[in-house]
């Protein structure tokens, strides 16, 4: 009896605010964004769930240390402009991060509320603040320092390159971003699909930097159009390399060059950067598989599978050699994929592709796997079960089993030191490489990782570049 009484006095518990979303059956056939975003009321209500901890664990979980309770309390007070300014101090791309960060292993994974209940929806709130500013804000530019007369070249316009450019332009340096593709944004425009990250958001972020004075030069393939040393000769004082990890990995099994087998990079670039889902309104074609297999289980695999569904597939299957527990994709993406009818073929590994007499893919031979002892990554190693071969029919296969370092730039710059996998060696605290005046960060240093880690590395490098420009190497 007494127990019940105390329970009643306790503040009413607010459940975690569910994100409004397009219905699975509808969205599985269109390219519009899936989560629709919190309304103002939902955001304020969700913000009230935050306990405003003295020692916030969530902040430790954020790779760039956003003051999470700080911005959440501003949302609670409906001071949205102040909230976004607060986030900007640590994170210059919150509209992106709110949508694509793996919050469940970062900020939200550490949230105290999550011990007994579901954690505060930090990502959704971050997205809300950024979207509110984009829709209602003044678009006012932050003040920039007096020009220093120093020139910086940023190679690659992914999240890490854009972050460096933004940080250095406000410090008064003259910044030019060189991008190999005809459009800037890196993976944010060529890899991550429209339904997860609308391209208009990325375009606006780039436009914001341009308004601040950053020059963006597309169609500049550094290593081919111009080399790093030529950039120094042109008068640049410092160079940041943020070229990502864009080299596609294949399975290296027989039959891989049949028609109908594409790297996820090619498939997603056609779909996103070239907008091939609008073909023939646009000129770039994309294969429309009816029976699609995607190899791999990371974000890239989920994006490929969900794209295939939207392009009209009858059946899309994720084939992965480990089990569900080891799937590296964000929880939200796996959940969304399942809701959209994508099937998971786990503990399965293809051994060869099968083609028809016209050289087109018609299926693949697979082996069933079981989990053995843990490997170097700490995950249990998949081992083939003997004589478990079976055939899987498919007319399109997207290979999303990882990516590596593209040697294009590094080959033409012999004095950069590389790891044995071809990534650039750089100091983790400053981003300094072994070549004077050159910094590097993001996926080209760490290997394929996350947007927020690429941005974190970029911020440290920007600080170090600034110091160098003002004081020396």
């Amino acid at each position: 009896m007494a127990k019940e009484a105390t329970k009643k006095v306790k503040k009413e518990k607010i459940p975690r605010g569910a994100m409004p979303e397009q219905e699975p059956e509808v969205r599985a056939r269109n390219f519009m964004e899936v989560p629709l975003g919190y309304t103002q009321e939902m955001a304020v209500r969700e913000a009230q769930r935050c306990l405003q901890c003295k020692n916030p664990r969530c902040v430790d979980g954020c790779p760039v240390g956003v003051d999470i309770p700080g911005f959440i309390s501003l949302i609670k007070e409906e001071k949205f402009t102040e909230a976004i300014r607060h986030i900007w101090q640590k994170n210059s791309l919150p509209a992106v991060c709110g949508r694509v960060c793996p919050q469940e292993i970062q900020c939200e994974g550490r949230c105290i509320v999550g011990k007994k209940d579901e954690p505060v929806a930090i990502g959704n709130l971050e997205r809300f603040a950024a979207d509110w500013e984009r829709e209602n804000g003044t678009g006012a530019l932050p003040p920039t320092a007096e020009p220093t007369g120093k020139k910086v070249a940023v190679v690659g316009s992914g999240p890490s390159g854009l972050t460096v450019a933004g940080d250095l332009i406000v410090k008064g340096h003259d910044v030019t971003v060189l991008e190999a593709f005809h459009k800037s944004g890196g993976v944010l425009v060529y890899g991550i699909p429209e339904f997860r990250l609308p391209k208009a958001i990325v375009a606006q972020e780039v436009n914001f930097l341009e308004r601040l004075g950053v020059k963006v030069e597309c169609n500049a393939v550094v290593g081919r159009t111009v080399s790093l040393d030529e950039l120094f000769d042109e008068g640049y004082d410092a160079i940041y390399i943020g070229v990502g990890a864009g080299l596609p990995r294949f399975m290296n099994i027989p039959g891989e060059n049949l028609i109908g087998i594409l790297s996820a990079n090619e498939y997603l670039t056609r779909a996103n950067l070239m907008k091939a889902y609008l073909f023939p309104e646009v000129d770039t074609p994309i294969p429309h598989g009816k029976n699609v297999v995607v190899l791999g289980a990371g974000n890239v695999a989920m994006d490929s599978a969900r794209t295939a569904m939207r392009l009209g597939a009858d059946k899309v299957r994720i084939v992965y050699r480990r089990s569900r527990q080891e799937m590296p994709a964000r929880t939200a993406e796996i959940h969304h994929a399942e809701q959209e009818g994508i099937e998971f073929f786990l503990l399965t590994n293809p051994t060869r592709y099968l083609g028809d007499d016209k050289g087109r893919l018609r299926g693949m031979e697979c082996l069933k796997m079981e989990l053995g002892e843990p490997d170097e990554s700490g995950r249990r190693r998949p081992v083939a079960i003997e004589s478990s071969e079976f055939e899987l029919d498919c007319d399109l296969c997207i290979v999303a089993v990882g990516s590596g370092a593209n040697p294009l730039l590094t080959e033409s710059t012999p004095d950069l030191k590389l790891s044995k996998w071809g990534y650039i060696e750089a100091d983790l605290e400053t981003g300094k490489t072994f070549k004077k005046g050159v910094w590097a960060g993001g996926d080209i240093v760490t290997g394929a990782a996350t947007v927020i880690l690429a941005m974190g590395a970029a911020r440290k490098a920007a600080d170090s570049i600034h110091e160098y420009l003002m004081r020396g190497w």
Partner: protein
Amino acid sequence: MFKIVKREEMSEGNVILNEIEAPKIAAKARPGQFVILKANEDGERIPLTMADTDPQKGTITVIYMVVGKSTALFKTLQIGGGYQDVIGPLGKATHIEKVGTVVCVGGGTGIAVLHPITRALKEVGNHVISIVGARSKDLLILEDQMKAASNELRICTDDGSYGHHGFVTEVLKEILEAGKVDQAVAIGPVPMMKFVSLITKEYNVPTMVSLNPIMVDGTGMCGGCRVTIGGQTKFACVDGPEFDGHQVDYDELMTRLQAYCEDEKKCYNEFCMLEE
């Protein structure tokens, strides 16, 4: 925009020459390298090997055949207008070296790509015998330029309207029988390169070919351009476009070039209907 400063129609209007303002590319490009062009916002990225460059003027020249929607769209671009995007120079440059006698074999628009390579091979002191082929006399391109770039020029037409009546491979065989040849270069339609390589292999003449698979980025990022060379997968855009002709899996390349055949037909037909 990358402006077109000169435009010519050849081969009865099926082949177009564009000289394009692209000073950065012109300053860097070497024979054998290619560029990627995109006409407008919704355009496709099309790789074309450069036919010439003029670093002083800051221009590059490409010569292409109208085969689909994208090249039909390129054909509509006039002097003063131009391409939204030109990216390059891409791919590895031809290895030019004095080896003695070199036979350069070109077919169709491949002759445009072959021309700067031929010129460079002659400039370093090789004795260059060129063989160029077309379906008929009116479709032959760059005859004068190839004549100037070679020590000897042999011409073949399928219909016999000019030069040797028959295939380039027949003249090639004749030359290989007549005297020692140290190197061959073949650039043109895939079947032509395939048969040239089969013949030069018989005579043990090292042969270089330039491949033109489907590409997207041209920088090693997508793997769409993969070709099999000596049993190994290579990315033509970064490992090539030139390869040892005796190692290439031509049949696979021909198959892979058909990947979007149906889509392209649809897109091309719609475009032609709009243009009419």
